[in-house]
């Protein structure tokens, strides 16, 4: 038997303290579609980035055609015939299709003469190979998403790619567009290309994939022929058994409804018809896949992208926050997902960060008193267990978990009624994670209503009093606190099980 097209052995990769890959084996044969599956954060992206040369593995080997291929860099990967098609095509919007293809495919000096007719002939030929009837003169900006993907695939073919990685190519496609893309993928397979196909849509796996590899917590839990698997088996492989991890228990039953959403939505963010009650002292987890609309819902609630449909009722009053400032005044608090960029201001000291949203509360009259600010900061440093710097250390010098606590401190200082947390423990080490969990539970115990967006299944199940599941921009299920990872994942994937009914 000939050597596989691509063979990965014992790949490991860590980021800071977090181990993203713990010795993954993976192989791809010529002329097969190999699906790669796993929850958010299971290590799929890291694996892909190693294959395309964007990351270097800490350990393990990569072999192409049976020959070891040192640590890859993007250029080396390209030369070995590896191409990646991302969910969001990475094309130059202001250039024509032909120019985009030429940029990637033509070699030679910057001052060479451009043979425009040849450039266009080549583009036309490549587009035909992927079944796209597109005029190569058209600017990429005018193309639809699936058309841009086809241009990307044409580009991969033009570069002689034999290993094509497709990262959730159908996530934003309609059913018809999806079917067409499947045709192109099958065509690639027939031509002997190896395709690594990442998707969250289970039905695609059964119609398209030859083999399936499931990743979980940075490890491969097995590679199987797709024909041997059933959907429930796949889901079980993805979530595994629940890891017994102590989560702080609820201290008292939730109180009355603080926040009522009725058919809430916003057209351009894809969120629609979200109806939900959030109670005082309750932690409502919000599970779902990346892109299901959870962050978009949070942004609507916080006035970043105001709603254009439905109602928000806060403490019995109908409100419509149109800016974060209004939302803060109404008693909402939002710790955003992208902490390193916008949760705290890295240049500003801890004290300034923590008081930023509540100057009026902390300093009546508008006069900032450093002594009072220092006391306030020292109090919360002690209270939240922030380590790594005093009140005047720049927030950027703290670890991720401690930065997250500073972001929390800022919102607690505003005396909010509703706290929205978006992936509060992403990229945070285990110890700080447990502290944040205890803190959030304590806040709920003090009567705060918490909306906890998390892609970490054990976390969302362990922390939540109820679990809302979003899919395709709306809330599709609300599960009780004893939900199992299988039922949550099934709901997130749009697969009804008895428990979710």
């Amino acid at each position, binding site marked *: 038997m000939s050597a596989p097209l691509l063979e990965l052995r014992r790949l490991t990769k860590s980021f800071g303290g977090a181990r993203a890959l713990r010795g993954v084996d993976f192989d791809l044969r010529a002329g097969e579609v190999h699906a790669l599956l796993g929850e958010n954060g299971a290590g799929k992206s890291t694996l892909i980035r190693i294959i395309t040369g964007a990351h270097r593995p800490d350990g393990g080997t990569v072999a192409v055609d049976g020959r070891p291929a040192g640590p890859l860099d993007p250029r080396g990967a390209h030369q070995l015939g590896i191409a990646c098609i991302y969910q969001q095509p990475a094309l130059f919007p202001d250039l024509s299709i032909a120019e985009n293809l030429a940029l990637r495919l033509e070699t030679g000096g910057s001052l060479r003469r451009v043979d425009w007719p040849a450039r266009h002939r080549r583009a036309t030929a490549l587009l035909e190979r992927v079944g796209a009837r597109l005029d190569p003169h058209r600017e990429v900006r005018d193309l639809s998403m699936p058309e841009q993907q086809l241009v990307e695939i044409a580009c991969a073919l033009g570069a002689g790619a034999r290993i094509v990685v497709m990262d959730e190519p159908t996530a934003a496609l309609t059913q018809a567009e999806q079917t067409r893309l499947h045709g192109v993928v099958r065509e690639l397979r027939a031509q002997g290309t190896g395709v690594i196909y990442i998707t969250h849509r289970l039905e695609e796996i059964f119609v398209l994939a030859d083999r399936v590899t499931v990743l979980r917590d940075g490890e491969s839990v097995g590679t199987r022929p797709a024909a041997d698997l059933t959907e429930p088996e796949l889901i079980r492989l993805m979530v595994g058994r629940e890891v017994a991890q102590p989560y702080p228990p609820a201290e008292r039953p939730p109180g009355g409804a603080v926040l009522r959403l009725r058919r809430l939505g916003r057209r351009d963010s894809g969120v629609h018809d979200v109806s939900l009650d959030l109670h005082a002292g309750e932690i409502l987890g919000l599970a779902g896949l990346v892109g299901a609309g959870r962050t978009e819902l949070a942004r609507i609630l916080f006035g970043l992208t105001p709603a254009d449909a439905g109602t928000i009722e806060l403490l019995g009053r109908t409100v419509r926050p149109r800016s*974060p400032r209004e939302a803060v005044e109404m008693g909402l608090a939002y710790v955003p997902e992208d902490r390193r960029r916008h949760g705290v201001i890295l240049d500003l000291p801890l004290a300034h960060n923590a008081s930023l949203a509540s100057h009026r509360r902390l300093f009546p009259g508008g006069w900032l008193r450093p002594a009072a600010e220092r006391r306030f900061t020292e109090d919360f440093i002690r209270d939240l267990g922030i380590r790594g710097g005093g009140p005047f250390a*720049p927030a950027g010098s703290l670890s991720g978990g401690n930065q997250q606590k500073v972001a929390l401190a800022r919102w607690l200082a505003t005396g909010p009624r509703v706290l929205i947390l978006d992936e509060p423990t992403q990229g945070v080490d285990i110890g700080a994670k447990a502290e944040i969990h205890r803190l959030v539970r304590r806040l709920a115990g003090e009567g705060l209503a918490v909306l906890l967006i998390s892609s970490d299944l054990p976390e969302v199940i362990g922390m939540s009093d109820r679990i809302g599941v979003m899919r395709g921009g709306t809330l599709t299920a609300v599960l009780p606190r004893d939900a199992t990872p299988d039922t949550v994942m099934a709901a997130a994937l749009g697969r009804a099980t008895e428990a979710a009914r």
Partner: protein
Amino acid sequence: MKAWPRELSVGLALAALLGALAVFAPGFFAGPPLLSLAAREAPVLLVACGAAMVIVCRQIDISSGSQFAVVSVAAGLLAAEGWPPAAVAAAALVLGTTLGALNGLLVAGLGLPSIVVTLATMVTWREGLRWWRQGAFVNLPDGLQWLGLDQTAGQWTLIAAALGLFTLLAIASRHLAAGRHLYAVGSDAEAARLAGIRPAAVTFGAFTLAGALTALAALMNVIQSPQVDPKSGTGLELKAIAAVVVGGVAIAGGRGRLAGVLLGLLLLATVAPALTHLRIEAHWEKAIQGAIILLAVAAERARGRPA
């Protein structure tokens, strides 16, 4: 936070320069010329404070020189019309604030890049003034110069006023919520917005305040001479920005203090007279000032932060 403060480096450079002058050219410290120098630079200090606020907010204003000229000429004409000084001052202040607010509106309201907006207003005000006045000087009525005081008392008054206002601004920038918001928006506008701050309002405020300060500076300049030169304020914006940058305010926004701006201005303003006193040819002045600016930015870079 115990890092070597930028202000200290500038302060040391200034001290070294003054020390050299004390040893080699004690004539520099003679009373009247030094007092004149300080009085001439007093208006620049106010413009530099405005520029610092705008730069901390991660914007830039290169129209202050032209604003300065427009306000100077307008104030001169009103005074020549016989308006009382207080009324002239009030009108000048309103005019300067309006000009600043216009910049703010275009940048914060329409989201246009500040370098382009203020380039446009810089050219428009300057050329408009030239077309309107045809380069004519404005003769001021008697008694306006030094506000009727003798020259020395007038100079001291100006210096005291500028330093007093500077101190107020320095305190306000650290003790008012608005000052804190300026730094927050300049560091990370999106994060500031998520914290409930309105970045557009803060940016608008910075430009408006800069306009008001430029108007005050123009008034301080007008009362120093018997005439108003319609070309006054040419290059003033660059002088102010240079002082801000040398004073350790990061051009990328969010960092720096007004105290540094004062030191930066003193350092740059001392170069020219120092050259004269040290018998170095005067045409080295710009080169040396340029070298100081480069050094300041390079020093910021060497501290591992983008200047």
